[in-house]
């Protein structure tokens, strides 16, 4: 064993090579060349340089690989727009004229896949809305669902079969009459053809429901009908709807379409405050609490409750989204079992069944919704919740909607008010409020777990409207018509008989002081105990 010579193990003193760097370099090259000729071996010192050189070459190669790989990952994270063919012309010009839409498009998956402006906007010969745009290119301003169906056929079919697609068919509805007659004004020519639509309908109703787009000369679009991205827009090519209702152009982000506010563009306000109810519900509360966390994954094609996220489903999650067992659907009504829109709620398949139109039964729709619920809730919970929901709808229907509707219809059929015009009598507004505003708020509140909308914004106001406005106004109508005598008086008697029957029914007799003594006593006792509890 050799003796240790140095005390300091780190005392590394490399032997200084002889000669300058240049001389050493020349020496290595010379040795290398001589060895190649077979004249001598390469010295260890030169081999050291060769090893260092090879190691540096290898290291630089790795650095290049790392740099390119890093770049590729950046591209994956921030993909770049691919501008192909004719689209280059569009982008070149529009990034100066309308830079916003070009930027939106550059952020879209469309641009990353090379789908550009002309791919969607190109018009074929014979298209009603063809515009000779620029440099011989024919385009259509409107990209209809039919245009989108070239790539998104399944979504197009589901959407076309949905209730959303029928949103534009509101002509003749009470809402439409309000916008065109009561709130706004429409002009007709001598043949009864509309010459100018109601400004209220154009800027109000139709922006959600969708207009029937009219094409003027040269492919220009009638300002009474467009701009419009209503959900049931009737397009020049005959297709219904507008994909950009929810998938805002031109970035068509899935995450954005899943935001509750997207649905809230239309599903809000006094007549159907879905967005407000959702925000009141625990679903909405947990979504707001987690939306930052969700923001990235919401862009995924599938965003499955219980798998990709654990709380805070949005409207799209329950009504459209994929679950572990269900596929994504663009038929938004396909999981809804009640139709809460009309004065008296009915099961959603009732209208189609009455007309013998084959449709998905309400039981199957409910079953699908329950599959969604099962992502987070137990079957027992779901069953009980549906029980609560059904009971509220039944209560609304039987206590207020059906009696009020029957009384209202009888009043009109007996001509006790002007029956050929709606909304010229106070009671018509009262009845409209009853089911269209308060009644829907109560029902939608129950359907989406918004207790305050069910109670104070809902059933409380339904009751207030029914007992304090509708019944007194009905009594006025009866009294007024009784005084007129003849057929009107006879009609008034029939209406009064119907009213008395309603008021004497078990649910309403309290209002005319006919509560049973037992119930009266029990309520009084409860009241006193309550007062005692709160020392009132």
């Amino acid at each position, binding site marked *: 064993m050799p003796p240790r010579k140095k005390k300091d*193990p*780190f005392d590394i003193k490399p032997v200084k090579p002889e000669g300058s760097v240049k001389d050493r370099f020349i020496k290595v090259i010379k040795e290398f060349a001589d060895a190649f000729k077979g004249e001598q071996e390469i010295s260890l010192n030169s*081999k050291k340089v*060769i090893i260092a050189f090879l190691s540096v*070459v*290898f290291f630089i*190669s790795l650095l290049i690989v790392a740099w390119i790989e890093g770049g590729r990952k950046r591209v994956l994270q921030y993909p770049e727009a691919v501008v192909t063919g004719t689209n280059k012309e569009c982008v070149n010009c529009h990034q100066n004229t309308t830079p916003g839409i070009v930027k939106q498009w550059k952020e879209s998956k469309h641009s990353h896949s090379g789908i550009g402006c002309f791919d969607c906007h190109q018009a074929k010969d014979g298209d009603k809305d063809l515009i000779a745009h620029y440099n011989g290119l024919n385009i259509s301003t409107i990209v209809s669902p039919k245009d989108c169906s070239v790539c998104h056929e399944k979504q197009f079919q589901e959407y076309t079969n949905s209730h959303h697609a029928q949103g534009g068919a509101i002509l003749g509805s009470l809402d439409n009459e309000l916008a065109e007659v009561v709130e706004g004004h429409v002009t007709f020519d001598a043949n009864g053809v509309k010459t100018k639509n109601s400004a209220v309908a154009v800027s109000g109703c139709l922006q959600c429901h969708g207009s029937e787009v009219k094409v003027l000369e040269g492919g220009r679009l009638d300002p009474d009908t467009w701009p419009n991205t209503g959900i049931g827009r009737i397009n020049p090519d005959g297709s219904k709807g507008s994909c950009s209702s929810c998938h805002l152009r031109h970035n068509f982000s899935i995450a954005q379409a899943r935001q509750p506010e997207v649905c809230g563009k239309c599903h809000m306000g006094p007549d159907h405050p879905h967005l407000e109810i959702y925000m009141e519900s625990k679903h909405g509360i947990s979504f707001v609490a987690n939306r930052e966390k969700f923001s990235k994954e919401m862009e995924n094609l599938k965003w499955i409750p219980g798998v990709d996220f654990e709380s805070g489903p949005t409207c799209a999650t329950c009504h459209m989204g994929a679950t572990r067992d269900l596929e994504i659907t663009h038929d938004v009504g396909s999981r809804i079992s009640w139709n809460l829109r009309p004065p008296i709620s009915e099961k959603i398949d009732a209208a189609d069944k009455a007309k013998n139109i084959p449709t998905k039964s309400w039981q199957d729709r409910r079953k699908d919704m329950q599959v969604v619920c099962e992502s987070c809730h137990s079957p027992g919970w779901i069953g009980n919740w549906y029980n609560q929901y059904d009971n509220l709808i039944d209560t609304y229907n039987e206590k207020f909607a059906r009696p009020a509707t029957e009384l209202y219809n009888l009043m009109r059929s007996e001509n006790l008010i002007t029956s050929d015009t709606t909304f010229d009598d106070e009671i018509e507004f009262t009845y409209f409020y009853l089911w269209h505003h308060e009644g829907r708020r109560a029902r939608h509140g129950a359907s989406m777990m918004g207790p305050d909308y069910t109670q104070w914004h809902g059933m409380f106001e339904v009751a207030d409207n029914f007992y304090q406005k509708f019944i007194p106004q009905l009594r006025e109508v009866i009294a007024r018509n009784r005084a007129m005598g003849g057929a009107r008086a006879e009609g008034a008697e029939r209406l009064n008989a119907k009213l008395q029957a309603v008021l004497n029914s078990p649910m309403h007799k309290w209002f005319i002081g006919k509560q049973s003594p037992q119930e009266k006593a029990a309520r009084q006792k409860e009241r006193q105990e309550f007062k005692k509890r709160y020392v009132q």
Partner: protein
Amino acid sequence: MSFKKWFNERVPIDPEFFKAFSSEPVPDHLRHWWWCLGGTPMYLFMVQIVTGILLAIYYIPSVDHAYDSVKNITENVNFGWYIRSMHKWSANFMIASVILHMIRVFITGSYRKPREVNWMVGTFLFVITLLIGFSGYSLIYEQLSYWGLTVAGNLLNAVPLIGSVLSSFIKDGDAISQFTLSRMYVFHAAILPVFLILLLVVHVALMHLLGITTFFFNEKTRRKTFPFIPDHLFTEIIIAIVLMILLTFMAIVFPAGLEEKANPLITPAHIKPEWYFYFTFRILKITSISAAVLIMGAAFFVLLLWPFIDAKLLKKKKTSEASTYIGIAAVFLLCALTLWECFALFLSH
């Protein structure tokens, strides 16, 4: 009875053996870290074992949960991202340092008699290191690891005679399934590391038995040596500390990420392996599956048997430096194929 006596009775090893072992003379050139690259992969392998065990606590080798468990490790588990990034970077460093070690051994001719067998053991260690890297990448179960596994299965299938058996054994049938993932897990976490450890023991033992090749750069350092402990041990500890700093730096600046979850129904636009298989992938692309398998097989056997091929060459011409030229050409070829594949991937995006 003193403790020493008590202990010696029960563990009858001569303390002189340890003394001799610890004071084994180390050639003077090993004072420089660049000659110590053989120890670097061994140290990195220890890092792999420690981080690998920690990752195994949270990793779930199931097709349904593998990706999510890796995501959980990366995003939720305390220091999970750090441990995973250390595991990833030490794997990459390990492969790079093995290649650098091999370059040094090859160019200096350290594999020559009597160290031929140790070179062969080293070649197997290199291949096992690559296989551990590959099987580890498969476990993430992201799109590229899934489809990389599919390509590897197809490559195995093209191995003459035993290809289909090999492929179906690895994949358990035609498609990638739960059983493929389980096999990859067992290979990565049990079989291959055990082989690696066994071969490492043989590699180090042979190194000690045969002695470290001594380089004399000039007369001044001729026959100069220093003891293994503590001198060389300190050098290795310094290297280990520097490597730990470097790994931590890489883990913090370039943490291990995650791409999309494996989807058997969607083939990604561009399938690519990890960088250390770029050269194989390039050969596969410029030839065919069968040709690539044959070329890779032949390259492995040439590498394995190089000491004997070199001896034949030396016999023909005493002063031949053919091995140096071939070594240089091989390194350039490896770098060129790697860069070619890398640029091809870059241009295809």
